[in-house]
């Protein structure tokens, strides 16, 4: 589904952050990318989702056989890529329900499906809200405005559940969550594991992996994947810390 070959990327103004990433993700798999602060984890998520401000200097990314880097951010999303933000953005004045329906219908138009009217949309929404134990009042509020940290993260997973992506990138979805919120968010993610869907989790801590069990674990350090393994690698990291990968990862 996703093939990353020798990916180098830098901030538009300066510093190289990704220094040759190779990664292969197949449908149905759950990957965890772990690494210390500054290792390039969030940059990888940003570059894959098409966030402005980064420049790819070398390498390529193919997604479902397409050149991913040639697509704009909104095209990538309509092709089935979803980024759960580390810091979900507050958008005053844009109603959550209006926003989500626009997003859902943009994807449906792209796939040649009929758009959902307000009634059909509300029906679909209610079912998912219930699963994630989110109150319906969320729909009437502006996107993420006045949400607590936990609500914002749950809203990300709720959007993911509605948009049904093929490839979900979860950027530090566990950060800032208390144990109850983490359990809810994880339950939401696990409910979405499917044979035709891949999930890439980016996290600093092993804690998340207790709730969402990955098939593969990669350690990112100094802009490169320095080690890959199964979930036992995470346990090893928990024991020894990132120091075992040298200075860049200290």
């Amino acid at each position, binding site marked *: 589904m996703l093939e990353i070959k020798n990916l180098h990327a830098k901030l538009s103004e300066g510093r190289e952050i990704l220094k040759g990433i190779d990664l292969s993700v197949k449908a149905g798999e759950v990957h965890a990318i772990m690494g210390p602060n500054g290792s390039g984890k969030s940059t990888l998520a940003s570059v894959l*989702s*098409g*966030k*402005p401000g980064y420049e790819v200097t070398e390498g390529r990314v193919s997604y479902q056989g397409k050149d991913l880097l040639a697509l*704009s*951010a*909104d095209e990538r*999303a*309509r092709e089935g890529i*979803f*980024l759960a*933000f580390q810091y*979900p*953005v507050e*958008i*005053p*004045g*844009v109603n959550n329900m*209006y*926003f*989500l329906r*626009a*997003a859902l219908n*943009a*994807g449906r138009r*792209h796939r040649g499906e009929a758009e959902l009217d307000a009634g059909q949309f509300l029906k679909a929404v209610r079912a998912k809200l219930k699963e994630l134990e989110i109150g319906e009042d969320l729909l009437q509020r*502006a*996107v993420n405005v006045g949400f607590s940290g936990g609500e914002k993260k749950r809203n990300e997973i709720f*959007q993911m559940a509605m*948009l049904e992506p093929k490839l979900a990138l979860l950027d530090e979805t566990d950060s800032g969550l208390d144990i109850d919120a983490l359990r809810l968010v994880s339950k939401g993610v696990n409910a979405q594991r499917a044979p035709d869907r891949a999930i890439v989790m980016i996290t600093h801590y092993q804690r998340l992996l207790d709730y969402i069990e990955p098939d593969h674990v990669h350690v990112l350090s100094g802009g490169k994947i320095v080690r890959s393994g199964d979930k036992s690698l995470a346990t090893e990291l928990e024991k020894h810390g990132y120091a075992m990968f040298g200075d860049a990862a200290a």
Partner: protein
Amino acid sequence: MSAKPETAPYRAAFAPAGALADKRREAFARFEELGFPTRRDEAWRFTNLRPLQEFSPHPSSPQRGAGRSEGAIAPYLFAGETHRIVVVNGRFAPTLSKPGSLPKGVTLGSAAEVAASHPALAARLLDQTDTVGGQAFASLNAALFADGFVLALDPGVALDKPVEIIHWGDAAENSFHLRNLIQLGAGSRATVIESYAGSGRYWTNAVAIADLAAGAALRHVKLQDEASDAIHFGHVRARLAADARYESFVLTLGGRLSRHDSFATFAGEGAACGLFGAYLLKGEQEATNATFVDHAVPKCTTNEVFKGVVDERAHGVFLGKIAVRPQAQKTDAHQLNKNLLLSPRANVDTKPELEILADDVKCSHGATVGDLDETALFYLESRGIPADEARRMLIEAFAADAIDRIEDDTALRVHLLAHVQRWLGRKE
């Protein structure tokens, strides 16, 4: 005193008659003395009057309003039930107007007709010809106006349905001088929705007097969506007695050159004034919103929010002044102007101003000029919303923040937002 040369074409058309002739002469003399404002006048510093000077419109409204079909004004009709007055090319259009049945104690009609039948109201129309000093176009309006509307409520009358005034202009190369009067008796209440639109090149020069007796409440909405070659000047003077409430919303979308001046004066304690608006400009449009609030007495409140969206080579101007006189203790006055610049060649001048001469007051003002929030834009795009649509959503939200100040009237908010959405879908 000699007449300014640019006033000469108007002298030729000036032929006052009837009960108001003396007042009109006085107004015309004032106009001749003032001439057109120039950039040396502080209030007109940012305004380029060239479009008006270049086309020198015929000075007065044509003799009769052309019979327009409902089709032309259809996009401007309010969705709910209203008392409707339609004015075409500066004159009352009886076939299009639907005042409906009016409660007892309500006078609503064409300014020309009401002036003929109600001498007291006629006098109020021209109470002040030069409403706050140095207003050349308001003086010209007083001298030349042919028609407009009058709404007068007896004390205690509440008009539940809004009064809807639609002005349609399409007599090319003409100017329309409209004089409007809204007079609310003590404790009365009304909503007035004015819409200005048309096609071709013309000049609308409208003056409205809003006189609110003690405890009266007026919600005054104006949509300015004039033709893209048209010029529009609107001038509102509100006077608030004790405990009166005046709330205005001005949505500026149309016109080549436009200006809206609001003047509000507090004449009694405990009154409150809300001046809100949004301007969305593109192409070569230039629009000014100027407000002046005079806190002449204690314990009054002003809340002012204007939001501007300026694209392409357009120019938006906000001039806001709140004056707090020495005796106006316990004044609570806030003013905010925020602008979105959508293009490198778009331009905004903003001048919020507080002049505070009392010491026990709560006042604030502020202005911002910025771009669309890139992180918000990316968030929307990352969910598959196309870039153009994401931009429109953010612009709409920005303008809606001003519209949402109309707190208790959903239908009115929906009406204004629909016009913003129409603007957003409009291509140059």
